[in-house]
């Protein structure tokens, strides 16, 4: 049972464009939604995260948009650069006291110079 659905699986964007990666969840008990970034040969690393009490969070060029009623959240990368080429995973957690993350299936993003 896949509790966090992520799309697209592959995404190619020209430098300077705004790639958007979407995730949808089913479990309304989820209350923490992080995004992880993974470069080739490395493990994933936390990029940015949001809680459902806000609809948007920005950190540098990365923005999470959150729609609680639709049970969807998305990652936007402003002014994308070739160095942003990586695999991105969304995830969800039931928060404090529950130690597991449920991950999406991943998006391999390529930024073309």
């Amino acid at each position, binding site marked *: 049972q896949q509790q966090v659905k992520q799309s697209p699986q592959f995404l190619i964007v020209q430098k300077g464009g705004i790639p958007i990666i979407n995730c949808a969840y089913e479990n309304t008990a989820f209350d923490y939604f992080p995004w992880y970034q993974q470069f080739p040969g490395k*493990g*994933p690393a936390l990029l940015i995260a949001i809680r459902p009490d806000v609809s948007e969070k920005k950190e540098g060029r990365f923005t999470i948009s959150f729609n609680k009623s639709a049970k969807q959240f998305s990652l936007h990368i402003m002014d994308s650069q070739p160095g942003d080429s990586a695999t991105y995973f969304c995830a969800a957690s039931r928060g404090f*006291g529950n*130690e597991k*993350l449920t991950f999406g299936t991943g998006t391999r993003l390529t930024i073309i110079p």
Partner: protein
Amino acid sequence: DVKVTQSSRYLVKRTGEKVFLECVQDMDHENMFWYRQDPGLGLRLIYFSYDVKMKEKGDIPEGYSVSREKKERFSLILESASTNQTSMYLCASSSSGRAETQYFGPGTRLLVL
């Protein structure tokens, strides 16, 4: 700096062999996790541990076992390796109560022939 190390980057084993994957973290974290990563399937949780000598099944525990004799070390065991266990294996750790921020090792790519 936070560090999670995995004993091997690449492993080649034969069907039926017993395989040990070792993970060590230097952050005094209570929680440790084993995932496998497959294209199109994302990160799937195999086992996790909240404390020494404690273990919990994740989403895909069949064919695997784990051992946590010391706080810093979490081992994944394939009792009798099979070809469908060919995958990338990722270890992660997190602090108790902050499971959302998981720190990953670089991964072990296992090929079972």
